[in-house]
């Protein structure tokens, strides 16, 4: 089935990636080629075949419910991005991360 520019924009929105109109057109061409490759699968009869999600068909291991990690907040916050919108400060304050206001 054929992809449209609208499909590209919808998927890009779901993936939270901004696309310009010209990017969307170029992406459409490439993705159409890749989906053409993927379409080869449709010729295979897979009725009754159990899907394989992983090469290890084991259940997940459980660990003891004990504290195993130390608090590395200060260490982790050294990698915080620059705030932006004119500020060159890191996007942190009082041990928290700063993002645009989401609740009015």
């Amino acid at each position, binding site marked *: 089935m054929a992809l449209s520019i609208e*499909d*590209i924009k919808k*998927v*890009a*929105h*779901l*993936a*939270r*990636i*901004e*696309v310009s109109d010209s990017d969307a057109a170029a*992406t459409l061409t*490439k*993705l159409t*080629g*890749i*989906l*053409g*490759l*993927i*379409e*080869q*699968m*449709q010729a*295979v009869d*897979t009725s009754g*075949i*159990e*899907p*394989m*999600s*992983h*090469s*290890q068909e084991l259940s*997940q*291991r459980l*660990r003891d419910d004990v504290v195993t990690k130390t608090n*590395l907040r200060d*260490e*982790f916050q*050294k*990698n*915080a*991005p*620059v*705030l*932006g*919108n004119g500020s060159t400060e890191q*996007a942190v304050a009082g041990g928290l*991360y700063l*993002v*645009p206001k*989401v609740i009015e």
Partner: protein
Amino acid sequence: MINNSLKQLGDMLQAKTISSVELTQSFLARISQYNPSINAYISLDESKTLAQAKAADARIAAGNAAPLTGIPIAQKDIFCAKDWRTTCGSKMLANFISPYDAHIISQFDAVGAVNLGKTNMDEFAMGSSNETSYFGGVKNPWSYDRVPGGSSGGSAAAVAARLCAAATGTDTGGSIRQPASLCGLTGLKPTYGVVSRFGMIAFASSLDQAGPMAKSAEDCALMMNVMAGFDERDSTSLNRAKEDYTKDLNKPLAGLKVGLPKEFFAEGLDASVGKVIETAIEEYKKLGAEIVEISLPNTGLSIPVYYVLAPAEASSNLSRYDGVRYGHRAAEYTDLMDMYCKSRAEGFGAEVKRRILIGTYVLSAGYYDAYYLKAQQIRRLIAQDFVEAFNKCDVIMGPAAPSTAFKAGEKVDDPVAMYLQDIYTISTNLAGLPGMSVPAGFAQSDDGKSLPVGLQIIGNYFDEARMLNVAHQYQQVTDWHVQTPNLDKSEGKA
């Protein structure tokens, strides 16, 4: 010295005919001479590297050296290493300083190996030519107009150019074996779950596996002794008894059953590569191997299946890069949604974005059954092909890649042509099996260049020691793995 095996280097260090500082400095000097043109390394940190070399010398002096103590190893920049910049080849992580060590980095630290630097790679390991790296492409040491393969292209070029003693790589669809083939070195992707993925930046978690890239099978075995092992921090790490991967190296091959899948020698394989592989198979016959014809009928479907499953997993794994806590954040944005969308649009390169979009598409409502579930069903058929094949043979052999190294830029605008580079490697990742590439000779390119060809060896689950034995015995009777490129000639100098 740069051509010595890890065993020889270890013996020299322990006999104190050379110090780790001297050995490390000699590699650093080669790196400053050749890396500006090859671009195999993204990050170097001479002071951290030399501090580790000094510590290794002290450990050797104290008499408690391990086989790799003091040996300079290059680490693919997908592995987090504490206080090292760790970029995964992306603008998204261009300023990320890792606050912790990946499991394999701490394993190398524990034996006193020296971290020589972080090697270049395709962005988030998505590519087969190293051209998607934000830090620029890598040149193939055999011919600078060619790509080294990918995604572990920097590690492959560093080993081939002798800019390290050995290197690490990761392989999701062929990213160790294809560059090993294109650069003429020995590379091993272990069975899924043998090497911990903790601290290895995720691409497609059900397929990603780390392994060694080195000058020989023996060197790979010594690297595996450090890298493999249970780690509770990776939920898919397998709790198996510790294994010595050198233990079977010297076993004779008489009676070994080698399966040749007819699908690996069909249309799509360069004739010149096929000829080299056939010659290598003849060599195995001389070593006493018995050849069995086998079939892996679903090989052709491995690429479509992979390009559903790997992007689906990637779209989920890469959703963590949102510009909030680390990684790239856009300089200008209006609200939170705009911040996410701009940060991701700017931080990711074109191929990574394509794969996120494909993954998001195949997982989106209405397409899940037709793509994702269908791919998982065919994945089972591909895995079953191998189960049947291994009823008839001990190892499977064929080419690692359909061609020798191609020219930079040749496939960059055609993702589908690029994806076909991994036609012989992807199916083992889908099945979770171990695979190797071993130098098997050279093929002439159209413009008269002599370029390396890799023989792929695929083993059954947990059969790495046998595969290393199979490769090592071949390397006792051939000298393809000790050939080295003339870097000054590759560059085009007289």
